[in-house]
């Protein structure tokens, strides 16, 4: 029997539809000509030009500060939340789970708007700090879910075994729990990092003057800046995201092979 070609063709079609725009963007970032219409030869001039723009570098710095601090905070909060969710079972914990889960499904625009309203109501000055808080609110949920999935894979009797062998809570946490959870926490951290670097909608709402992040910068460049520089910037962003996602995937699958 001859197999139908249709699934193959559809797959290729969908992939082209997804990745062609990105390919065009990447190729154009190395295009010497100013407008993407024709190939003007290979060049790195847009990347050099990018390096010379102070406001972009500033936005990059903001993004990095927020991404790292939000990741750290959400790792600590998310891991402890996941641990509580897994270890203690009660009606209150079901409620806790729903609260942790909700940010994953609430539309971003709603999150952004409500956070903005909250900050204004409380009277916090909009700036890097508010962006940090906003990023933590959604990153915590992702970290908690990833770590929770890890926790569900292993036998909680190891905690009792450690105590049985003379370890107190502190030793149990550092010598047993932390190493066992490390791959889960690391992959949650990479996910949080990616989300924080990428986030536009929520940041857009809660960013104040002088606290522009990279995605917001890019958005304004579409209107006012040079499209070719934008291509170069987007390509870099794309590469960083890709590496983070790849690393996160690797950590997860490695762990699965080991157990």
């Amino acid at each position, binding site marked *: 029997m001859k197999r139908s070609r249709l699934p193959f063709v559809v797959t290729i079609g969908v992939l082209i539809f997804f990745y062609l725009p990105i390919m065009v963007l990447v190729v154009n970032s190395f295009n010497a000509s100013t407008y993407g219409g024709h190939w003007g030869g290979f060049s790195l001039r847009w990347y050099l030009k990018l390096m010379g723009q102070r406001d972009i570098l500033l936005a990059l710095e903001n993004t990095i500060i927020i991404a790292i601090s939000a990741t750290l905070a959400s790792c600590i909060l998310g891991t402890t939340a996941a641990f509580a969710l897994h270890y203690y079972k009660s009606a209150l914990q079901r409620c806790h789970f729903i609260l942790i889960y909700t940010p994953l499904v609430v539309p971003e625009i709603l999150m952004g708007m409500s956070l903005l309203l909250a900050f204004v109501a409380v009277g916090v000055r909009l700036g890097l700090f508010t962006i940090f808080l906003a990023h933590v609110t959604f990153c915590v949920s992702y970290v908690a879910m990833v770590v929770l999935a890890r926790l569900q894979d*292993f*036998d909680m*009797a*190891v905690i*009792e*075994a*450690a*105590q*049985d*062998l*003379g*370890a*107190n809570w502190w*030793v149990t946490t550092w*010598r*047993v729990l932390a*190493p*066992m959870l490390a791959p889960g926490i690391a992959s949650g951290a990479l996910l949080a990092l990616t989300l924080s670097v990428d986030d536009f909608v929520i940041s857009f709402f809660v960013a104040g003057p002088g606290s522009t992040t990279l995605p917001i910068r890019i958005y304004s460049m579409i209107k006012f800046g040079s499209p070719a520089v934008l291509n170069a910037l987007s390509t870099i962003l794309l590469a960083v995201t890709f590496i983070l996602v790849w690393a996160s995937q690797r950590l997860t699958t490695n762990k699965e092979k*080991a*157990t």
Partner: protein
Amino acid sequence: MAEFLEIENVSKSFGSLCAVDKISLSIHRGEFFSLLGPSGCGKTTLLRMLAGFERPDSGRILLAGQDITSHPPNKRKVNTIFQSYALFPHLTVRQNIAFGLQVQKLPKAEIDAQVDKMLALVQLEAEADKKPALISGGQKQRVAVARALIMKPQVLLLDEPLAALDLKLRQKMLLELDIIHDEVGITFVYVTHDQGEAMSLSDRIAVMNRGKTEQVGTPTEIYEAPRSSFVAAFIGDTNFFEGEARELVDKEYSRLKIEGFPDLVCFNDKNISAGNPVYLSIRPEKFGIGRAKPSLGGKHNIVPGRVEDVIYLGGMTKYWVRVDEYKIAINQQHNRFYLDEEPIRWNDDVWIWWHADDGFMLERYSEADENLMSLPPESLGEGAEP
């Protein structure tokens, strides 16, 4: 002088459920002691209280004269082998075994020396640098044993350590556990619902049912002289007859009336007084069976019956004999085919007999116990048949 491990009136409830109900046990130093009982009878809960993972609602636990009831698990010289082994997956076999000593911050050279000794004891030198995920079930179990023994506990607690293994490996590990126990001389408290395991390993067994101990004794005592109908039914096979105790004869023996039987005599070690309803329990292998009425005197009971079924099992033959409304299981070593007479067949009229000492009068069990006993033997543990 108190025993080495003394459990005094210990109770533990989960909500309205009383998992362990005023249990008292005395366990000798160096003993292999088993807790045996059906699923959910509170064995694990009792063991977890000994380890310190659960706090008793009431009662005390004394170890070598010291009250340890409220000590946390890391402050007790008691170690546990968990049913799932609970090995640390991120550590190698060697690191797993060394964990307890590292927590105590012993010098590295000493830890290494002791770990090497343990690896030799459980024959795992070749696997020392593997992670637990890469070794077999039997090897994992040995790592768990070594990890606990290296702590030199005063008591080793084992919660169904063989349940996860297949039958063949189980028998092998059973033997190894026995050897290790003899070698290290530590007190073992062993939880199981498998009577075969308990019988073959233990110095003494506590048979538990619904949070209480039904009987504590050596395997022989428990099999040969069950104190309650639950124990009689749970350990091995038995025939139960409903009857009524009558007057005493000869101090320790009573007459017994069972519907459809002639007057019987039975050993009455529990001083059940005349008029009380009782169960008579007789193990299948305690009967004699034959075509001719035997000329046995004194304390033998001899009853006529009719064979309803004969099952030849090689090592023995199982007869089902009808006496009035009872269908009695009788095991005989051989069916006499090669000896003298014709073998006993279906529908033969026969005589069955047993000695008064081989029957036990027991108080009637409750309905809940009865339900438990009507389960097929597999669900309670392995049958006692060889």
